[in-house]
């Protein structure tokens, strides 16, 4: 808590007299932020409101967050992959609904950049590799490294046929 003496003796002079600490060099009194008129252990310069430990702690947290954010962004900038989107689509559940069979899926972008307007297409083929049905949906934004969920409704039962789910189109955001 002991700070160098020079901080206590800026402008104005007359600092030897402890009673003079109540007035500032410019003659303005400090406002209601709890100025340390007492001078306590002399840790703060005259007329600077005492900063509570809680406030120091909050400021330290802020500093930590800034450094963490900056450090993370530098890391991102240096290491970030900038390859194309690369999306895996996994069928989660298949349940009967009005109008057919609902296939709920999870699309995960394992590539290096965001896919906007990511078109997920599901194709049903029968034993003879003939296409039975084809449905698609569009995911507005599929960020790199993230997953989004969606669903496709088929008229035919996807559990009987072969179901292929994949990304067929996207645009750069």
């Amino acid at each position: 808590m002991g700070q160098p003496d020079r901080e206590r003796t800026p402008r104005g002079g007359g600092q030897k007299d402890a009673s003079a600490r109540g007035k500032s060099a410019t003659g303005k009194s400090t406002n209601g932020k709890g100025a340390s008129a007492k001078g306590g252990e002399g840790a703060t310069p005259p007329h600077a409101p005492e900063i509570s430990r809680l406030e120091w702690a909050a400021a330290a947290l802020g500093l930590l967050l800034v450094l963490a954010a900056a450090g993370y962004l530098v890391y991102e900038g240096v290491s970030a992959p900038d390859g194309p989107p690369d999306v895996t689509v996994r069928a989660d559940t298949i349940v009967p609904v009005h109008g057919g069979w609902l296939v709920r899926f999870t699309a995960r972008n394992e590539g290096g950049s965001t896919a906007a307007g990511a078109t997920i297409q599901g194709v049903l083929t029968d034993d003879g590799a003939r296409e039975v049905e084809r449905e698609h949906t569009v995911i507005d934004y599929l960020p790199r490294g993230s997953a989004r969920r969606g669903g496709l409704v088929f008229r035919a039962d996807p559990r009987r046929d072969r179901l292929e789910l994949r990304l067929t189109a996207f645009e750069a955001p």
Partner: protein
Amino acid sequence: MYAGMGVTHDGSSAERGPEAGEQDRGNAAEFLVGAARGFAGALLFALPLLMTMEMWHMGYTMTPWRMLLLVVLDLPLLVGLSYFSGFQTTPFLRDDVVDAFVAFAIGALSALVLLALFGLIGPGMSAHEILGKVILQAVPGSIGALFAQSQLGSQPAGGKGSRERRKYWGTLFLMAAGALFLSFNLAPTQEMIVIQHRSAPWQLLVLVALSLIVMHGFVYAVDFRGQARVPPGREFWSVFLRHTVVGYAVALLVSAYALWTFGRFAGNGVGAMVESTVVLGFPGAIGAAAARLIL
């Protein structure tokens, strides 16, 4: 942190004595009130952006370097705002730096909580997406928090202390901050591009003139509280050129920076860049003029 809080609540600190502990407790209580005010400010000013879809997308589409620059520029902006607009009469920069970091913490925390409540960050999303969204929203949140700490308190805003230490460059700084604030709320939106495409060149020219007139009128003519007076003996043109025109130029520069940050310049020709800058420069000019009045 916990140790500090413990001391605060006990009021008994070995090395500082009971009086110092009481002092610290009083200051801590005041700080908590100030922090609550900061959260209110972060809500008030950052909520429009927290609820803007483009801002969520920018969180993971913006290049890391631009976001880093934004965070790095945010700090001197906060320190400067605290210094020029705070009503504290102390000349000590240390307080302003502390205030700036506290404001950033408040901005980041409120962004984290609200984005989680809105379901915009959560399981299934990569760290890249979550951190990007939070960091980006922390910037306007921190500005709001600092603004509230210095302006929404029980002290009269724009007190004597803040006015006195502010000279020409300080005024320009505040105008830049005001321009940044308003242009930041609008630059991410799709609407800016639509307006730009719907406006003919002559309409944009009128917009430039309107920006200048409104800016000058805001500050000098319409008799708002906190309005600046044209010093006696000064020519109209002198004030207009040195304050309004320069202020508008600052607003345009800030608008261009905001557009660039949000990737609105990408792939555009110079003409389109100038057009969108003029469009965003209008709210920027209003923000700059308002900052002069309010702060």
